[in-house]
């Protein structure tokens, strides 16, 4: 069967089971958009290529499958560099297809030419510049294999226009052996000796903590984690990237560690004698000052990526495997610590002394952002997916939403990409149309990517967006208040400009506003009654509200600042 490269590319995506592509056409990718008309694959036409990338990420994080984005060359390709970086930092499986100028024009500064494989070399797991139509099926199959196995990540396929237009005899790689990846070996045999050393360390520990990161979600280890934690009674903390992998409702869950972590989670790590690190990477937002991070703890580091071992903290035992496999091996070996009663007694005291708190909202005063988040979380159906942008609202959501299942939390961790929330929520809803999807956003973030609500309305993707509108770039404002003597530099945005309700309506969405608690409850109910179009709610929140607890940047976790109402009690 003779196909054009373009037809072969689309057919290859169908072979991979792709059901949705997020993209925007242009000159160099034009040939590929023609056979798309005849394909079963749904294409979501975005309004900016950054939206396509974040949607594909949201899709991937909600489903666990690779998200797919397709854009044209030059500015189309550079506009998706931010999502690629984001996916690289958070190990999100992504396949990005970019158009490229014809092979005969490459290197000649042709119209809309840019060296996107060069640009993305350091921010992709791998990338391909496809040289012939015959190579396209292999490139697609290899891209999906690379993106989804081992430590997942973004893979880019650059397709020159003449490659898409030329013809090939259709074929498709029958197996991984046909992918021509002689240097790629994502799985290694389990190191039984290392498992035995882990078991020995666990047996000796009296103050162990399970420090669980995003790798646990990637390896779908929720069931194994629950079983291991319950059998051993070891306390669990889940990082920003791992929220949802272990139920917040579980009494062994101490919550999130790190810069804005729960006091008990942060302090349990600091006082621990054994950190069992599962698919986490000692991010500086978790460790604070590394020299004083968990100073008395031995470290078991489980990761599928061996380059994480010793990158930040030298492990006592490194176990290169995925989290689920490691936990099954620990269980099979009967790994268990001694009695943890004293340890738990100490932890329970921290929990009761320093729970997550915030000031109650006044009846007619501005809303408390944490109260808005808790009110939405309480009223949503089970299985709701929540996305966020980056900043204060993200931290409050990570703290105050109740996560009870994996892949229900979509956020930008490593890269901290403002504007991630709206498009990521759209992508999540495309991947899980059966679920209610909320985006908890900030007013600053919303303004960066809000235009994708036009996409959501046009494509029939009814997400719900809560803007916690405090009229500021809130997290920067918080730092300026606390560490720059209240000298506020370029952080004021205005609560009324733009008019978020009118803007939402102009984009075909329902726009609502709430300025006090009664209105808040009403608009949340109203939002839940609307399921055909996107809803945007402008929640007017207190500009001065800050995220606590907080470990100042570069400070030791021991110097955690609790909520003002809890100070003096220490």
């Amino acid at each position: 069967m003779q196909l054009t490269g373009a037809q072969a590319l689309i057919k290859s995506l169908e072979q991979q089971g792709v059901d949705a592509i997020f993209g925007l056409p242009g000159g160099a990718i034009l040939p590929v958009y023609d056979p798309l008309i005849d394909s079963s694959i749904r294409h979501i036409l975005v309004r900016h290529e950054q939206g396509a990338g974040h949607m594909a990420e949201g899709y991937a994080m909600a489903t666990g499958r690779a998200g797919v984005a397709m854009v044209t060359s030059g500015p189309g390709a550079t506009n998706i560099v931010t999502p690629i970086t984001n996916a690289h930092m958070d190990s999100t499986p992504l396949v990005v297809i970019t158009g490229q100028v014809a092979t005969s024009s490459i290197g000649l500064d042709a119209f809309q030419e840019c060296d996107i494989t060069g640009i993305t070399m350091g921010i992709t797991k791998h990338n391909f510049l496809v040289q012939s139509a015959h190579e396209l099926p292999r490139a697609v199959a290899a891209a999906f294999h690379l993106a989804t196995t081992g430590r997942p990540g973004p893979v880019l396929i650059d397709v020159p226009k003449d490659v898409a237009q030329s013809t090939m005899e259709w074929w498709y790689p029958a197996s991984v052996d046909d992918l021509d990846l002689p240097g790629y070996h994502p799985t290694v045999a389990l190191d039984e000796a290392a498992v035995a050393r882990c078991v020995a360390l666990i047996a000796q520990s009296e103050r162990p903590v399970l420090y669980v990161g995003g790798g646990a979600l990637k390896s779908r280890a929720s069931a194994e984690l629950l079983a291991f934690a319950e059998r051993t009674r070891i306390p669990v903390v889940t990082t920003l990237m791992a929220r949802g992998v272990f139920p917040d409702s579980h009494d062994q869950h101490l919550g999130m560690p790190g810069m804005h972590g729960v006091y008990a989670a942060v302090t349990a790590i600091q006082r621990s004698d054994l950190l069992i690190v599962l698919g986490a990477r000692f991010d500086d937002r978790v460790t604070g000052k590394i020299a004083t991070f968990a100073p008395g703890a031995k470290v078991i580091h489980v990761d599928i990526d061996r380059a994480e071992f010793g990158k930040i903290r030298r492990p006592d035992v490194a176990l290169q495997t995925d989290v689920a496999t490691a936990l099954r091996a620990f269980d099979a070996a009967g790994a268990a610590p001694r009695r943890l009663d004293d340890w738990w007694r100490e932890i329970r005291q921290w929990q009761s002394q320093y729970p997550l708190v915030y000031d109650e909202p006044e009846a007619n005063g501005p809303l408390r952002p944490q109260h808005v988040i808790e009110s939405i979380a309480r009223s949503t159906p089970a299985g709701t997916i929540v996305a966020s942008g980056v900043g204060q609202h993200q931290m409050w959501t990570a703290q105050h939403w109740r996560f009870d299942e994996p892949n229900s939390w979509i956020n930008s961790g490593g890269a901290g990409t403002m504007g991630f929330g709206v498009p990521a929520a759209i992508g999540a809803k495309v991947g899980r149309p059966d679920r209610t999807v909320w985006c908890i956003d900030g007013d600053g973030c919303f303004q960066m990517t809000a235009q994708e609500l036009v996409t959501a309305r046009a494509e029939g993707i009814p997400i719900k967006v809560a803007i916690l509108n405090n009229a500021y770039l809130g997290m920067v404002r918080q730092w300026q208040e606390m560490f720059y003597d209240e000298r506020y530099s370029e952080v004021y945005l205005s609560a009324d400009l733009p008019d978020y309700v009118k803007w939402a309506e102009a984009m075909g969405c329902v726009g609502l506003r709430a300025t006090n608690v009664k209105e808040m409850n009403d608009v949340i109910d109203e939002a839940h009654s609307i399921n055909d179009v996107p809803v945007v709610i402008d929640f007017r929140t207190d500009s001065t509200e800050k995220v606590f607890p907080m470990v100042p940047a570069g400070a030791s976790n021991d110097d955690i600042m609790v909520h003002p109402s809890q100070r003096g009690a220490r």
Partner: protein
Amino acid sequence: MNTPEPFAGEVSHSPVRHHILSVLVENKSGVLARIAGMFARRGFNIYSLAVAPAESHARFSRVTIVVDAESAPLEQIVGQLDKLVNVVAITDIAPREAVERELLLATIKTDVGNRTPLLDTLGSAGAAIVDVDPGAVTVMLAGTPAACDALERDLEAFAEVELHRTGRVALPRLGRATPADEQQKD
């Protein structure tokens, strides 16, 4: 890449700082950029680099990288290098366990009638003259990095026009040391 200048002053091939990675890679365009980019991005230092097709077929190339193992722990460098999809195999050769060779080419200004001191220097170093014209000669030494260092120092006494070194290639030492390599032991 923050590459140290290999020919300036007293260059040391100290086995403490340097480590040799013999890296088999797919012979595809951009592979060297991927390797170099990774080193730059991670702040790892390359001391020298030599690349050539491996064996007779064109599918793979052999990259010999002398790394500055003080810029990062060796296992970090190897771990990150191994993540590059085009990197097929990495052999980490400790300097003491390596047979290392490097090629030095130098053009020296010299009159036809006054070549004896140069010939003495070349003779004692085991270097050869590979090109001649009335006003200059080009000399070559294929030897250990230390031997190349020594010749480079000795050639400073002459009017040097140009001197190039390839960077070293290496293979693991066999079970017993050969006499020629004894000078590398310390």
